[in-house]
C-alpha cells in the first residue's frame, strides 16, 4: 500500500504483470474511489464551465462526457478531468484525487453567482472495469437485454438495490466503464462483481497496472506528465482544447504558443535495446547535449520492452529521432515513437 492523493492504495494486488494481462486479455477491476466528483449546477452552468474548461462543453448532449483541462492564467494544467453533462444545466466533473481541493478552490474563486458547486467525492465510491470481456460481464450482471452506454456516454442504472452511475470510458486503451455508487455500497459492489466476473477471468488491479496500461496508450498522468508548469499544447493534447471558443482561462497563452510553437513537447519513446527500463526524471540526451527529461517510464508488459514519455526540446522531438536516456550515469539509446506505444494486434 502507498499513500496516493491522501488515500492508501495498493500498487498491486498480486502482480502488476498479471493484472496488466488480465485487462489486455480478459477484464480487470480498479478501485477508483479516490477520484473526486464535483457537481456543477445552475442557470448558467454550461456557459460558465465553458470559460473554466478547454474543451467545448456546448458539444455535449445530456448524458455524454468529454476529456478536458482546467487551466490557470498561464495555461498551466491545474487538472485534467472528464466533464459529463447529466442535466440541461447540470454537470458531473470527475477529477484527480490529489487535485480535488485545488480544483474546488480555483472554481470557487471564479464562480459565477448563479452557479452552485458541490464536492460529492466523499459520498461516492467508484471502480473502473476494463478489458475486452467487459460487455459479457455486464450482460451477466445486468441481464442480456440491458446494454452498456455508448463510448463517452453516462447512464444511471439499478443493480441488486444499488444505484449505479455508469460511464463508458477508461484509462487503459481497452473497452471499459467507470462505475460510481454510494460509498456505503462499495464493498458489496466490489465483491459482487468479483464473484460474477470469475468466469471471465476478472482480477482486481492496482495502481501499478493502471500506470503500465495507460503508459502503453500514452495517456498522461497528472503530477508526472502534466503539471501547472505544463500546458496542453506542450503535452500534445491540443485536440482537447477548442481555441475557437471566444473566452476561457489560458486561451491567450495557448493562442500564442500555437503560433510560435512550444519550446518542448511531450513525446513517447521506446528503448532500442533490452536493458534497464526508463524511469521518471532520467535525463534525455541528443549527441551529448541534454535535451529533455523523462516524465513516465516503465517496462511495458505487453511489449516486454522499456518505454516512456519525456518532454524533449522541439527540434529533437520528431517521430523517429534518436535520443539517449541516461540511467545511473550510462546512456542507453532510444527512439521517439508515434502514439500509442502499444497497438492491439
Amino acid at each position, binding site marked *: 500500500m502507498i499513500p496516493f492523493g491522501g488515500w492508501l492504495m495498493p*500498487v*498491486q494486488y*498480486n*502482480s*502488476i*504483470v498479471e493484472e496488466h494481462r488480465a485487462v489486455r486479455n480478459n477484464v480487470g477491476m480498479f478501485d477508483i474511489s479516490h477520484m473526486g466528483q464535483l457537481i456543477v449546477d445552475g442557470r448558467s452552468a454550461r456557459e460558465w464551465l465553458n470559460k473554466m474548461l478547454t474543451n467545448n462543453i456546448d458539444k455535449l448532449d445530456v448524458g455524454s462526457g468529454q476529456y478536458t483541462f482546467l487551466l490557470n492564467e498561464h495555461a498551466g494544467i491545474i487538472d485534467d478531468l472528464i466533464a459529463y453533462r447529466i442535466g440541461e444545466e447540470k454537470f458531473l466533473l470527475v477529477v484527480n484525487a490529489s487535485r480535488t481541493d485545488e480544483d474546488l478552490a480555483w472554481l470557487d474563486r471564479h464562480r459565477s453567482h448563479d452557479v452552485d458547486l458541490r464536492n460529492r467525492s466523499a459520498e461516492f465510491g467508484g471502480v473502473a472495469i476494463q478489458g475486452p470481456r467487459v460487455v459479457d460481464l455486464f450482460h451477466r450482471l445486468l441481464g442480456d437485454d440491458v446494454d452498456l452506454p455508448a463510448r463517452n456516454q453516462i447512464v444511471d442504472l439499478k443493480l441488486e438495490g444499488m444505484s449505479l452511475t455508469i460511464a463508458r470510458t477508461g484509462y487503459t486503451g481497452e473497452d471499459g466503464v467507470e462505475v460510481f455508487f454510494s460509498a456505503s455500497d462499495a464493498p458489496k459492489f466490489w465483491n459482487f462483481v468479483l464473484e460474477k466476473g470469475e468466469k471471465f477471468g476478472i482480477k482486481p488491479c492496482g495502481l*501499478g497496472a493502471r*500506470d*503500465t496500461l495507460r503508459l502503453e496508450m500514452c495517456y498522461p498522468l497528472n503530477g508526472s506528465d502534466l503539471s501547472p508548469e505544463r500546458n496542453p499544447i506542450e503535452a500534445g493534447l491540443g485536440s482537447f482544447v477548442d481555441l475557437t471558443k471566444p473566452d476561457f482561462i489560458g486561451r491567450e497563452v495557448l493562442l500564442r504558443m500555437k503560433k510560435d510553437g512550444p519550446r518542448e513537447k511531450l513525446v513517447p519513446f521506446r528503448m532500442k535495446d533490452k*536493458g*534497464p*527500463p526508463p*524511469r521518471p526524471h532520467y535525463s534525455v540526451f541528443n549527441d551529448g547535449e541534454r535535451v529533455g527529461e523523462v516524465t513516465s517510464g*516503465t*517496462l511495458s*508488459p505487453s511489449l516486454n520492452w522499456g518505454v516512456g514519455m519525456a518532454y524533449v526540446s522541439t527540434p529533437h522531438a520528431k517521430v523517429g529521432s534518436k535520443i539517449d536516456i541516461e540511467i*545511473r550515469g550510462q546512456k542507453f539509446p532510444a527512439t521517439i515513437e508515434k502514439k500509442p506505444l502499444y497497438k492491439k494486434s
Partner: protein
Amino acid sequence: MNVPDDLLYTETHEWIKREGENVRVGITDHAQSELTDVVYVELPKKDRQANTKEAIAVVESVKAASDIYAPVKGTVVDANKALESNPALLNTDPFGEGWIFVLKIDNANDLKQLKDAAAYRKQIG
C-alpha cells in the same frame, strides 16, 4: 515465507551464505514477493571493492528500481550472469539460481553484524 535457517540476513533483505573466505548474496523470498516481476538486474563488476551497506547492484521490477547492498566489506569475485538474460530467476528461485554476487570478505568478524534467520523472521513479521 521461506527463511532458510542456514543463511544470514540484512535489514535491507539480502541473504548471505558463507562459502569459506567468500559470501554468496541474493535477495530474500520476502523481498522478491514484495517486488514481484523482476525485469532487470544490474550486476556489480568483478574486482569491485565495496564497503558495508554500499549499493553495488540494482534490481528493477516493473514498478521501481531497488538498490542491493554489500552486506559486509569485500571484493566482488563473481556475479550471476544468468540474471542478465533471465532476471525472473530472482522470483522463481531467490535462494538458489537467483543469487546475485559473491564477495571475498575482508574481515570475517563483520559477519557478526548480520541477522540470523530468527531475527530476520521477526523483522518481516
